[in-house]
């Protein structure tokens, strides 16, 4: 599972500059290597900057200090090589499921027949066959997220950046989506960077979990979470529970720090 590093983050700092109020240091000297085809989770308390780091890798925010290299090239802006999935789905509400999924394919200028075929294939893959003409407002949370995932997978990005994608879903749907995502990942084997604050989710899904400190965010520790996850009852195995404990202890200190820092 190791291979040439695909994303290299080196010494990145980022400031959050709101229109009103003081500038805040969001990320401090973050360094991270993400390997090709790896599933890495970014885990940390609220406000630690994990989403910010994701947006920097995605090219939605400019890199101020330090460097971010994707396949050896510095990030210069958003692009279809790094597909993103947001927590609030970010589906185009005026487009049907099919049109949403087609959008990235249209941007790439694929011929019509090929576009339609690919779009349908991914709609089927996420289990939304039959809902092609539905609008996002007619879909449940889980279905919306599946549409978002299908949309991002359809244009075949080299990696997936996922920003707490299941955060807005209820617990049952979330757990269903987690196993589905794992299944899709095992089939497509893209590099995935998955941001979450949920320890169970991170340990279940990822091969490595990068625990971030409270603001200003740094990479505190990286925990290896590779083990057999095929067992449907894996959540109850000793391996899993031990890993969760290990990671949780690391996060807890930071979570307390984050709480103390927050003005209430």
């Amino acid at each position, binding site marked *: 599972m190791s291979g040439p590093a695909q994303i290299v983050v080196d010494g990145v700092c980022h400031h959050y500059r709101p229109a009103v109020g003081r500038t805040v240091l969001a990320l401090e000297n973050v360094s991270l290597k993400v390997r090709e085809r790896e599933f890495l989770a970014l885990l940390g308390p609220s406000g630690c900057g994990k989403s910010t780091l994701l*947006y920097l890798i*995605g090219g*939605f925010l400019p890199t101020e200090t330090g460097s971010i290299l994707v396949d050896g090239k510095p990030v210069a*802006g*958003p*692009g*279809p090589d*790094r*597909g*993103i999935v*947001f927590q*609030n789905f*970010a589906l*185009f*509400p*005026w*487009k*049907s499921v099919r049109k949403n999924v087609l*959008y*990235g394919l249209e*941007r*790439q200028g694929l011929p019509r027949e090929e576009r339609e075929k690919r779009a349908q294939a991914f709609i089927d893959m996420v289990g939304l066959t039959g809902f092609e003409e539905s*609008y*996002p*407002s*007619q879909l449940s949370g889980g279905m919306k997220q599946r549409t978002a995932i299908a*949309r*991002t997978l359809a*244009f075949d990005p080299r990696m997936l950046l996922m920003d707490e994608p299941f955060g807005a879903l209820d617990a049952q749907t979330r757990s269903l989506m987690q196993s589905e995502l794992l299944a899709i990942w095992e089939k497509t084997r893209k590099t995935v960077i998955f941001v979450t604050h949920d320890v169970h989710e991170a340990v279940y899904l990822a091969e490595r979990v990068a625990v971030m400190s409270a603001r200003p965010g740094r990479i505190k520790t990286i925990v290896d979470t590779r083990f057999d996850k095929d067992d449907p009852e894996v959540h109850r195995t000793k391996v899993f529970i031990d890993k969760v404990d290990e990671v949780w202890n690391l996060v807890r200190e930071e979570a307390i720090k984050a709480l103390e820092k927050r003005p209430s």
Partner: protein
Amino acid sequence: MHRMASGAFWSAARLAPIVALLAGWEIFARSGAVTPFMLPAFSAVVERIYDDAFGGELFINIGVTLYRALAGFAIAAVGGVVLGTAMARNAVARWFFDPIISVGFPMPKIAFLPVVILWLGLYDVSKISMVVLDAIFPVVTATIAGIASVEKELLWSARNMGARDRELLWQILLPAALPQILTGLQVALPIALIVVVVTEMQMGGYGLGGAMMQASRFANSRGVFAGIVEIAIIGYVLVALMAMLRRRLLRWHQEAQAVTEV
């Protein structure tokens, strides 16, 4: 079947007060409590409208008024969206026009009518310009608000998928802002009608406003009431058409609302 029946029932229920009002009007007018001058009977007004339609100038007047109102509205719509978009995306445009818009919005711009007449004369140009001056404001503010409220994640997703700046504007920004832009247009339409009627009353000539003012000068109360009914119907129809257009364009949006109503 049941749904159709209950739909019909509700339409009837909603018409009932209107029918009652008209009946009340007729009865009150004929009762002798007021003179036919003060309140001509509804039937007399209908008769007058009929005469105007088939022997007089009703259709010319309606046509002229509608032309001016809709031309002004169209210019205000396009101009307003363009200006609003520019203001939303360009800091200099925003800085320059913001005080003009925020100070100008609550002004009774109809006060500028004599100035507009001075500059542009007594023909359609000045009437249409006045409509544009009044109707553009709600469109601009609605466009700015609509564009500002587009979630950044939508834009980021589109850029993520390779959309370029121009494509972002037409394919993402404007469609996402459409609900609010349409609201602005729905506010602007009645304004256009109000203004066109006032300008016609001031300047005279053809048009429903001019005709009504004429009737008023000749103390022809049937003519005045006929004008009110005609304009009321036109206003109602235009607003209803606009609402239908909105429902059609926002099918994807309204669905969500329809679900919650159940």
